[in-house]
């Protein structure tokens, strides 16, 4: 089995890719950081361990959009590949433009101790799509959780409780838009919040404008969010954004039996119409 750095070295030496996006040892303990390797001398920096939480799909649009004819190689876990699938589906990249170094993942951790929450409901230890595969799959000794379990738990609360919960959470938002910047599927060059004619979302922070931003963001990700959790990790006020995203994912799943990021040929359930679609919302 080749290691990631060996593969990267070979790809760069053979001039097959313009860069390799991967993980390297971080400057803080228990953290890794992203590295973009462009020459084979640097390839040794590349590592993979259980601290590689980040979803590197973000670099495929925001750093490399059509800048090169040659593909970009990227190190991807099973969950990250779902984002790439979404990007292909939405015509942001072509499959040939990305060389996926798939890694078999046995769960990752944000702090070096506890498993990341997204890993509890992960069934994709081996990526669905890759060009080369590394790593060994181990038996996961964890209890599998329904991906929507926390949403279902939350839905049990009363309307007032839920409303107050979100108003309290969203009040913390300072509109830094880190959640947007870090999201691999928020690839628009001009976001709706930047539009001024008309101005859809007020730029200042207030209860109502924060609400309209977060609702808009969640709606824009409905049927598209793959649940990588980057938005929530990037939020320095720890707003539980995943809960909002998962709620939308659940609505889409319940109504259209669709999960994002599994099929790059699938049509988006919100853009497509099927004759068997429910019409129970028309009353």
């Amino acid at each position, binding site marked *: 089995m080749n290691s990631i750095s060996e593969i990267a070295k070979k790809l760069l030496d053979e001039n097959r890719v313009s860069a390799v996006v991967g993980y390297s040892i971080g400057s803080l303990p228990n953290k890794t950081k992203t590295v973009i390797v462009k020459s084979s001398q640097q390839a040794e920096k590349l590592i993979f361990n259980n601290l590689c939480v980040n979803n590197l799909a973000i670099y495929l649009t925001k750093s490399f959009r*059509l800048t090169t004819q040659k593909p970009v190689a990227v190190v991807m876990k099973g969950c990250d590949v779902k984002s790439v699938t979404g990007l292909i589906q*939405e015509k*942001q990249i072509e499959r040939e433009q990305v060389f996926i170094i798939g890694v078999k993942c046995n769960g990752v951790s944000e702090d070096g101790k506890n498993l990341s929450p997204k890993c509890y409901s992960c069934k994709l230890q081996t990526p669905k799509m890759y060009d080369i595969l590394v790593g060994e799959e181990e038996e996961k000794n964890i209890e599998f959780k329904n991906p929507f379990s926390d949403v279902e738990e939350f839905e049990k609360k009363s309307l007032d409780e839920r409303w107050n919960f979100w108003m309290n959470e969203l009040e913390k938002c300072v509109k830094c838009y880190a959640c947007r910047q870090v999201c691999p599927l928020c690839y*628009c*060059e*001009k976001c709706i919040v930047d539009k001024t004619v*008309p101005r859809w979302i007020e730029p200042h922070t207030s209860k109502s404008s924060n609400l309209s931003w977060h609702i808009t963001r969640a709606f*824009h990700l409905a049927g598209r969010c793959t649940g990588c959790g980057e938005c929530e990790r990037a939020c320095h006020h720890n707003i539980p954004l995943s809960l909002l995203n998962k709620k939308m994912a659940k609505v889409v799943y319940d109504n259209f039996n669709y999960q994002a990021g599994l099929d790059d040929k699938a049509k988006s359930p919100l853009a497509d*119409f099927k004759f068997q679609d429910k019409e129970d919302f028309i009353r």
Partner: protein
Amino acid sequence: MSRIGVFVCYCGENIGRTVNCSEVTQRAAKLRDVVYSVDYKYMCSDPGQQIIKDAIKKYNLNGIVVASCSPLMHEKTFRHAVVEAGLNPFLCELANIREHCSWVHDDKRNATDKALDLIRMMVEKVKKNLPLDTIKIPVTRRALVIGGGVAGIQAALDIADGGKEVVMVEKSPSIGGHMAQLSETFPTLDCSQCILTPKMVDVNSHKNIKLYTYSEIENVKGYIGNFEITIRKKTRYVDDSICNGCGICIEKCPQKKINSEFNTNLGTRKAIYVPFPQAVPNIPVIDKENCTYFKNGKCKVCEKFCDRNAIKFEQTDEFIKENVGAIVVATGFDLYSIEKERSDNYQGYGEYGYGKDPDIINSLQFERLLSASGPTLGEVTRPSDGKIPETVVFIQCVGSRDKSKGIEFCSKICCMYTAKHTMLYKHKVHNGKAFVFYMDIRAAGKNYDEFVRRAIEEDEAIYLRGRVSRIYREKDKLIVKGADTLIGKQVEIAADLVVLATAMLPQKDTVPFAQKLGIGYDKYHFLSEAHPKLKPIETNTAGIFLAGACQAPKDIPEAVAQASAAASKVLGLCSNDQLEREPYVAYVNESSCIGCEFCLQSCTYSAIENKSIVNSKGELVKKVAYVNKGVCQGCGTCVSICRSKSIDLAGYTDEQIYSEINSMFV
């Protein structure tokens, strides 16, 4: 700087009764940027329009709000007036204070306030209106007629006589449709084939008509003026360019006992056949399922005897592309069957034995028994034993007007043809007795009621007002148990033959066909007209028209009249080089479009494509969405799905809608 004029209409009492128009006018005058406001009893009248025209010039107005009825009623009128005063028509907007206000409220105070709100919204919108130009799209001046029944034939002939080319597509081997199967027609009792076949011949020989029989519509692309049709020419296994229709192949074919569809399974045909003697074109078709060669790999007798070598066993389906500007759909009807096993959602008639008894037939089968070209050469005999039936019971409304079977509508023509059947039967079997069970006699039409009276009074048909509850066989006879509600008694008739006037339904597979064309259909799958009164020929898709029984049950004169109407619509459309349409189409902001293609997927009209943006060196910079203005119907689905708000609808821009909404919160 906006200079808006507000024109408030009383619409006689229609608005004035519930809305205080003079108060609305005074308050509207105080709205920001409104420089002139006036009321008038009928703004759509000539003097009313003159007020608008004069005000535009006098006050130098650059935006007009007419507070009156629905834009569907008079938007055109007012925009026309505005143009005459030198303004762009799209700078005129209607505030609907009639349908949306006075007609639906009765509280004058609140209705007056609401009328002002509606005006204020429109004032804010019109300030953001931009002058727009109508869109011109080219027209392919040819038409497609789908279906070669009498409606399709009439439409095709009328269009062709008008000097425009017609492509006719018929799915069966010959044109003629159901009318070719009929014996005589009501109310004149003239021979159906005698009046139809000249028209069939005309179709075949007309220089402007291109006929595709045994062909189906595979695909329809495009829009009004510019449809691209793919036609599947099914395999005949006979080369129609060589065959001269001599019929030797049919004569020699050893497969003799195949049920003839044309004779409603009462007669037989060969495995190579023309459906009926006057078929157009007179080219045989090989029925692959029953052909000995296709079944056993041996035979080819037809090929052996054909001295022109027209038989081609190796033939395959052919796909032909045709470009047309308009489409007439004339796919006709089918009959409801009383069977138990069904492919539709209706119920069969268990009380009539689910159609298992050979002597319980439907009216189309009876037509074939009466017809001189039919399986019995016009002699009325029972299918079971060939005996001449002395008592025939006709039952009307079988399926029709019967909610319990799933069909609520009246099939319209059965009252008339049943009367005709009783007459024709009496003319052939002089000592025969005809009984008719009916619910009501619906004989509205020129000479129609007289015709039914003639059947009863001169030809002695016995009409019994009531339903039949059961039919069962007792030896040689069919016992028909029913009610005569006029004398209030049960009746029992021992009949030799029972004829059911079964409901008219649209052709099978109308739904996928309608979806292919993008036209609407109702719950029975009849194709839908655009407006039940004012647009009975048009469909909701521009450029596609309806003719005949595909829309609703119709008799021959009605189908023919509608076909001619459809033809006149087509000719009207084809008399222009270009079509003008309202400029309410989507447009893309290419700088912020990211090319996710959600709009492309969501567009029901396939009006959106992708477009590559290249730099001066010819390198691809990005791909964006592109709207084909000719196809776009301005529905706005793409606008709502675009996350970066990079697509907008001219005439209904986000900014205009936003201004309207914001005006509500002052």
